[in-house]
């Protein structure tokens, strides 16, 4: 197999090139390596039988990601009760604010990320990590651009909440009450 960046004449030849990204996306949705690999496998099979519907010249990765997330959500609907139960358990877990550290610890971050809803994890990975535009992400997830934008910002806010960080406030240091009062006055004036 050769590494190449230019699209091949047959999109099937480009599929292996996108497998690492598909896997990363699948892991972020399923939060489980085995489930992620099963999801990637199902996506490959579905993509293969639908390649005649792929418009050559369009974004193959976006097309594959769309099949992947649609498969994920349709599987999830089938197993709804089971999934809701496990989400409930995750949501009940509280995360502790990383003490005296301006940097987010990766394990804390991942723990909080995994507590987000799949819709929030999805937009964060599409827009925040893989660099898709809001427009591409909207097409892939089948919602309006404005919905993607508000989802991304809500997802970031929720992450901050889960990490015990309040957006718009200082994460650099622990603040005492007096400092907070000054800060909140200044925020009100600025708004």
């Amino acid at each position, binding site marked *: 197999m050769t590494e190449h960046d230019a699209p091949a004449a047959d999109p099937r030849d480009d599929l292996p090139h996108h497998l*690492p990204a598909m896997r990363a996306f699948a892991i972020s949705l399923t939060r489980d390596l085995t489930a992620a690999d099963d999801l990637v496998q199902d996506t*490959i099979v579905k993509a293969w039988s639908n390649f005649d519907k792929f418009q050559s010249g369009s974004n193959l990765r976006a097309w594959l990601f769309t099949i992947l997330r649609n498969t994920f959500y349709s599987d999830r609907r089938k197993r709804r009760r089971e999934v809701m139960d496990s989400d409930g358990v995750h949501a009940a877990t509280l995360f502790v604010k990383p003490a005296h550290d301006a940097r987010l610890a990766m394990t804390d971050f991942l723990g909080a990320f995994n507590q987000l809803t799949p819709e929030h994890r999805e937009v964060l990975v599409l827009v925040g990590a893989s660099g898709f535009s809001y427009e591409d992400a909207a097409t892939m997830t089948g919602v309006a651009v404005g919905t993607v934008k508000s989802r991304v910002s809500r997802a970031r806010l929720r992450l901050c909440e889960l990490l015990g960080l309040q957006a718009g406030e200082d994460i650099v240091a622990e603040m005492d009450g007096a400092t907070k009062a000054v800060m909140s006055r200044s925020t009100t004036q600025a708004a």
Partner: protein
Amino acid sequence: MWGAMAKPKDTAAHLKDAIDENLRKIYHEILNEDIPDRFKDLIEQLRKKEGGK
């Protein structure tokens, strides 16, 4: 003392950057992992089924 502190707006932007940086780090870590053979085998199988396109 107040002047040395970051303004709320800056810290919000900083927080957003930190989140995106972490997301990219995690994402790229997975990207660099080896792809399991099962996917290469599967593609091989699909090609054969198709009659060697």
